[in-house]
């Protein structure tokens, strides 16, 4: 399983070398709203609400603090 993951990662990474943009083509990607972390506070609030009400949590990154939420 782990070996498979490693091979998959290497293949993915070598595949990635063929996609992407040149540095001067980053005009759209440079916009704040295109950042994958554009709204960190909204993301933290959502994570906290859903962590309190559902059995799943995380995925996007590390959680911002546990709680004994009822």
């Amino acid at each position: 399983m782990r070996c498979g993951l490693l091979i998959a990662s290497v293949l993915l990474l070598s595949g990635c070398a063929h996609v992407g943009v040149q540095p001067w083509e980053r005009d759209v990607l440079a916009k704040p709203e295109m950042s994958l972390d554009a709204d960190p506070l909204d993301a933290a609030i959502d994570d906290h609400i859903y962590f309190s009400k559902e059995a799943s949590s995380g995925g996007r990154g590390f959680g911002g603090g546990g709680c004994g939420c009822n």
Partner: protein
Amino acid sequence: MSDTKNPADLNLALAAATCALLGIGATEPVAAAEADTWSFDSSLLYYGESDDRVQDVSAAISAQRKFDDERVLGLSLTADTLTGASASGAIALDRPQTFTSPSGKATYTTQAGDVPLDDTFKDTRFALNASWTQPLARLYTVSGGLGFSTEYDYTHIGANLSLARDFNKRNTTVSAGLAWSQDDIDPVGGAPLPLAQMLDVGQGGNKAGSDSKDVLDFLVGLTQVLNRTTVLRINYSYSDASGYLNDPYKILSVVDPVTGDTLTRTPTAGLQGPTGVYRYENRPDSRVKQSLYAEMKHSFGAPVLRVAYRFMTDDWGIDSNTLETSLRWPLGGSSYIEPQLRYYTQSEADFYRANLVAGQPLPQYASADFRLGNFDATTVGVKFGHKTAGGNEWSTRLEYYQQTGDIPSDQIIGNQANRPQYPDLSAVIVQFGYRFGLR
């Protein structure tokens, strides 16, 4: 194809190219040029469940200070005030039910036909997080964080460390991180002994003191620029929790195997106490969760579409799927509206039970916590944002959350079929946000 006809876009493109040539991180090249500044993101949130269940008012502020050389300090503070009632796990009956409150010092009563809610719940929570990010070598970025949160019956401390490396002209970023946390739980009235019975007010012996749990998280991620308008992120995370994983306030009704009604109980003469037989829950003392998360952002000219999907599975038998999407649609030059949609579905834990059946041997683990049950949840929302002339931004977000679950049909006994079973939940979320900077 090109939309650099606009001088502002041309400036962005030039700034991005300059930063890339200088070897400055390319994910946010424009922001990177604004060193030595503080920026703040603040929010005020109201979360309110229907039927007088949980109400939460939360204020959060996060500050970010950018230094030269791409070093960034992040600080955040959150304060929450929670009140209201929460489903206890006991089933509804055709007669009123009285329970001993978690403190063991009082009782509360649920009316006939209602799903029992424990309304003794009130809490204030403070959380503080600090993080530091800096380049380690030309293509490496390291970041670390510390977190602390405290509430009446709960204390959390945590630390995390991540390393990221850019490849392929910074179109590809691979990251790996570790997080550790320790939580101390000091439940009101003590942590119930596993599957211990609820006793009369003032009677002890069914509860112990405080307890704790440790959580170790591991995450690997890949961020990939697919083309000029699309970026993709894929994360795999592994989480290992061990220690006290029970909810000390959740109970199960012990029911008659034929009627499905909770066994009646008479409190000791002269004492107040439960009018039925209830037992506190017990969960395994370890849990391993794994999740795969994929997120994509795509720009259609000015509108930006975000789609995210997460699959999670754990060794408690819970599988979940989450799909989120939002579309940020500009309104004029300085405002936007963003409809948001989220769908979540989970299967129940192996030890989830609507109730315990009298006369049968007690299982090792059992919980009637609705959050470990089989349910779907939908969130529909909209966010509106406006950028002021000074470059600050305020926003408002309104969301509606609806959870609908069901109890496995083989667990429904006798009269239970005619009563409300799963404590469906709906909530309104209202959030105001303001972002501002200081130079």
